[in-house]
């Protein structure tokens, strides 16, 4: 089966004045549909840089990147924005929710930028549904300042899922949480992977967290040490298609 993510010999070098700072030095990896992958490595090894490229926030200097069968490495900024909206979901270490904005509006926010027309009512309905899925149906109108860290991160997850992405990227999603809420959020992410079949790539420092993943990719100093390819058969009995099941899709329309 065609992998959802396929990186081939990615190089990324930052310019700091006159000095070149090479961060990624020929990264190649694949992630199959429905996989849950953890990305580990020491600080400064280039994990976030790699995630930015995977998330189409940044362009590599060289190398190719197929996302869902589409070559995306050299797309323009606007094309990448559209792609992010359609196919990618982000979960950040520091939640990045809009302050003084209800959970519902936070979750519905990506729909504002969707190409197709989504009516107000439809958008609300979809956001409510997503909040329900992360167990926050009671907290729809709460502002972030009145939610606990774990709840905030769950709102952020709902937001990442609202556009039914093929790939969920999470850069240290539990980095700002205590161990108990970490478990809660991780449980949720794993459930999304197992029940909904959403492909997940997650950066973490914590080996305990990494154990939740089906595969661990180790990166060191811009080079992947091991786990780049899913050599083994798929770890979970994942459904064929990511995202929401067809019945739900119909409902949302």
């Amino acid at each position: 089966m065609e992998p959802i993510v396929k990186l081939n010999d990615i190089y990324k070098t930052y310019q700091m004045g006159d000095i070149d700072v090479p961060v990624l030095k020929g990264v190649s990896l694949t992630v199959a549909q429905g996989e849950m992958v953890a990305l580990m490595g020491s600080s400064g090894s280039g994990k976030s840089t790699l995630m930015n490229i995977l998330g189409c926030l940044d362009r590599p200097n060289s190398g190719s990147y197929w996302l869902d069968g589409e070559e995306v490495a050299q797309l323009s900024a606007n094309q990448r924005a559209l792609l992010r909206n359609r196919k990618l979901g982000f979960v950040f270490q520091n939640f990045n929710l809009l302050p003084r904005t209800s959970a519902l509006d936070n979750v519905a926010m990506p729909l504002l930028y969707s190409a197709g027309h989504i009516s107000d009512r439809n958008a609300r309905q979809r956001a409510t549904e997503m909040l329900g899925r992360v167990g926050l149906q009671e907290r729809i109108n709460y502002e972030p300042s009145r939610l606990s860290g774990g709840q905030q991160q769950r709102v952020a997850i709902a937001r990442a899922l609202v556009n039914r992405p093929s790939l969920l990227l999470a850069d240290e999603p539990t980095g700002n949480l205590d161990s108990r809420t970490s478990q809660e959020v991780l449980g949720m992410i794993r459930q999304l992977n197992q029940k909904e079949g959403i492909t997940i790539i997650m950066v973490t420092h914590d080996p305990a967290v990494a154990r939740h993943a089906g595969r661990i990719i180790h990166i060191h100093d811009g080079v992947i040490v091991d786990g780049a390819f899913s050599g083994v058969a798929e770890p979970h009995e994942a459904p064929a298609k990511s995202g929401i099941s067809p019945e739900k899709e119909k409902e949302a329309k």
Partner: protein
Amino acid sequence: MKGYRIIQTAIKALRRNPMRAMLTTLGIVIGVGAVIAMMEIGAGSSGAIRKAISSMGANVLNIRPGAASSGGVTFGAGSGISLTPDDCEAILRECPAVRNASPLVHTRAQVVYGNRNWVPTFIDGVSPAFLDVQNWTIEEGESITNRDVLNSNKVCILGKTLVRELFQGESPLGKEIRIKNVSFRVVGVLKTKGANMMGMDQDDIIIAPWTTIKYRVTGAALENTNQSSSSSSSSSTVNTLSNLYPGGQPSLYPERSEIQAADNPMPVRFASIDHILAAARSTADIPAAIRQITAVLRERHHIRPGQPDDFSIRDMTEMTNTLSSTTTMMTNLLLCVAMISLVVGGVGIMNIMLVSVTERTREIGLRMAVGARSRDILRQFLVEAVVLCLVGGALGILLGHGGSYLVRLFLHWPVETSVTAIIAAVAVSAGVGIVFGFYPAWKASLMDPIEALRYE
């Protein structure tokens, strides 16, 4: 992103910090308020000036005879005796742009009632059309009639000042007053008009049929306004009702014989009048009226092409223009000041929007990460600035309107609501929003999502 969604998003973003939004927009509120108040007060005062001018007869054309000259000595404008009552009739008949016209003769004389006397500024001999031309109405009693003019009846209408000076609260109707020993019956009292633009009291006036003034009053004694000294010499000639136009001057030359008259016929003008007052149908008709009157009078006076007119026509346009240009200039000056405060308000908006863009860097990064293109970000911040400005503009309109209302209430200045001002204010505040909101919005749209997300 749909239009109303952008506005909705902008309003939500502004509502996250209502206090700041209010303070930011205060500059616009004050600026627009000042503009609206200025425009309304300015429009009010120029309206008041227009009214004052039209009380003097805004569309009135004053036709005067040209200068008489004899042996190289001219006697100044109006000294000629070229205008006749028939000219006035002809103008009425033949000039479609003229609404009404009246002959006018004036004199200056002492007026006596009982043991009180007064010399009014105006003793005007006119036809009944005069009141219409001057836009004047009778407050009490009635007007003079055409029959009065034909018969040179000794009736008159008094202005309020005269009523006050001569009658002291008594009703003057039906009373007899004397002008140069000719007694006039008062038939009406004019409505108050106040001072004209030259500061002359327009109510200090007696209106009588022009024939009466011409033949009974000025004919009696031309050279004196002092009644007592002339009374002895004129007493014999007045009040003789036998001849139609009494009080002719004593003839200086021997009577011409019939043969002399036949041999050497002289054009006889039975009456010359001092002015003709004509009212144009509207301000726009003034030039047409002037053209038509000139044509009629030139033809009647047998003036060949190329020869100068023997009369002159003046209108109030120049004065109206001078006065209204003065107020317009003042209003414009104040508007400039108000505009400057709008610009200052705009700079305030730009400043706060820049702060807001910096402060919301993470939000911008996040929006970009979930799919906002740079033009979405640009639009969002631009719309925020415009919404701020429009809200400020709306509040400013209320403020300015309220301000001018208070001015009217407490200072009794005339104000006029101006729709143009309101439309202009809305347009200007939207413009300020776009101009001063563009730079911050453009800065926001140029952000790199990764940098923005990492911003602390």
